């Protein structure tokens, strides 16, 4: 069943069409990646899905309900981890609950329950600068989860991490997603990452940006660690490269 549907979405700024007729579907529990070159309108598309920007035409549906132009429903995680330096880790994470009108104490209590699961216990009252890159990322994920808990859109969530931390976070993310029953749509530049993590890949190319191809990874999101050394992996990669270079 589709939890998130983006239908015929187009948007222009000052006569320049940025994205044209975008159709995207996200099924429950899926990880889907959106792959494309920089400046291809991915951020514009995400702003529309998050509800902070309105499309010129087209609709966004969450669980069948039209949410076009409504914010606060789909969790949005921006490129940087965006932990606010002047709030403790706990207050950072509890922020979406507070914004929704929950009392501060209640929000803290609720957020606290997940600290163990997200590998953050002991850091509740520290400020973000005391955290390592991977921990900051996990804190940002926890905040994203507490934001809506159902559908998350992530803008290059792993791009700031080094190779080793990235692999670790990838595996951790898949596990936690499974546990929390979240569906994810994320943007990436990294083909390997897209193939390793996703159930499906949308390729966004051209000006204005359009979805030129949808690739289904038949292995699903859970793949062996060394999948990137197999022939199947290379076949997917070749397909992506040829789509991007057209």
């Amino acid at each position, binding site marked *: 069943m589709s939890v998130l549907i983006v239908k015929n979405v187009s948007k222009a700024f000052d006569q320049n069409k940025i994205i044209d007729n975008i159709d995207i579907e996200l099924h429950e529990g899926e990880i889907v990646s959106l792959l494309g070159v920089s400046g291809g309108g991915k951020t514009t598309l995400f702003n529309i899905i998050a509800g902070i920007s309105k499309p010129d035409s087209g609709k966004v549906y969450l669980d069948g309900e039209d949410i076009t132009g409504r*914010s606060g429903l789909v969790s*949005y995680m*921006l490129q940087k981890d965006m932990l*606010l330096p002047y709030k403790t880790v706990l207050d950072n994470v509890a922020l979406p609950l507070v*914004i929704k009108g929950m009392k501060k104490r209640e929000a803290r209590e609720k957020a606290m329950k997940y600290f163990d699961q997200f590998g953050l216990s002991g850091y509740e009252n520290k400020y973000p600068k005391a955290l390592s890159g991977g921990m900051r990322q996990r804190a940002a994920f926890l905040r994203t989860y507490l934001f809506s808990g159902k559908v998350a859109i992530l803008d290059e969530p792993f791009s700031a991490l080094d190779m080793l931390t990235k692999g670790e976070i990838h595996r951790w993310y898949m596990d936690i997603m499974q546990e929390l029953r979240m569906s994810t749509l994320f943007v990436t530049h990294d083909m390997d990452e897209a193939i390793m993590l996703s159930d499906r890949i949308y390729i966004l190319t051209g000006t204005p940006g359009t979805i030129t191809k949808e690739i289904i990874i038949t292995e699903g999101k859970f793949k062996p660690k060394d999948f990137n050394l197999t022939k199947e992996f290379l076949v997917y990669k070749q397909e992506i490269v040829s789509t991007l270079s057209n």
Partner: protein
Amino acid sequence: MLPSPLAVVEAFVEEFDELMLHLRVTLTEAVVGLAVGVLLGFVLAVAMDACQVLYKAFYPVIILTQTVPTVAIAPLLVLWFGYEMLPKVILVVLTTFFPIAVGLINGFKSVDTDEIKLLQAMGASKLQIFIHIKLPGALGQFFAGLKISASYAVVGAVISEWLGGFEGLGVYMTRVKKAFAFDKMFAVIFLISIVSLLLMKLVELLQKKFMPWMEKE
């Protein structure tokens, strides 16, 4: 003309009670003026941040108020408001609101737009964005402005007292100057410096209290 340090210390001790009496008046003017100045600066900054038209209308006027020399306004204030505390407090307000307002406006404007975007995506209202992002983000600039304002406050109060009044360190200063009592003159100068430094230290302590995230781990 230049008294020995010993003479200055002696003068300070000798005149201590008298100095404290005047200090109390000056400090009251400075603190009340600073408090009102901070409030005014804050209100102006918030209004100008919320509304572009207000920003365009008021910013040049605010700059203009700072180009008029204090010494030139002070006699006018005395004429308009008399010899009591009010003209002094007004002068302190005029000198202290500016660093606060400018600091806060710059602070509000320098907030990371992605942070605002994140909160918008969470469905935050303008007020929530102000409370959670803009206000804490501008605190550093606010305290930098407050430090300047705190030192201006004492000096501003003293200058306004020069130009008319019955009590205060400025009044005392003009008196001892006319008597050519340079040792006392220097004693009061040091007292003013020390009080300014103490006020700035107090601001620093406040900053530590309100910005705990700046502490080193």
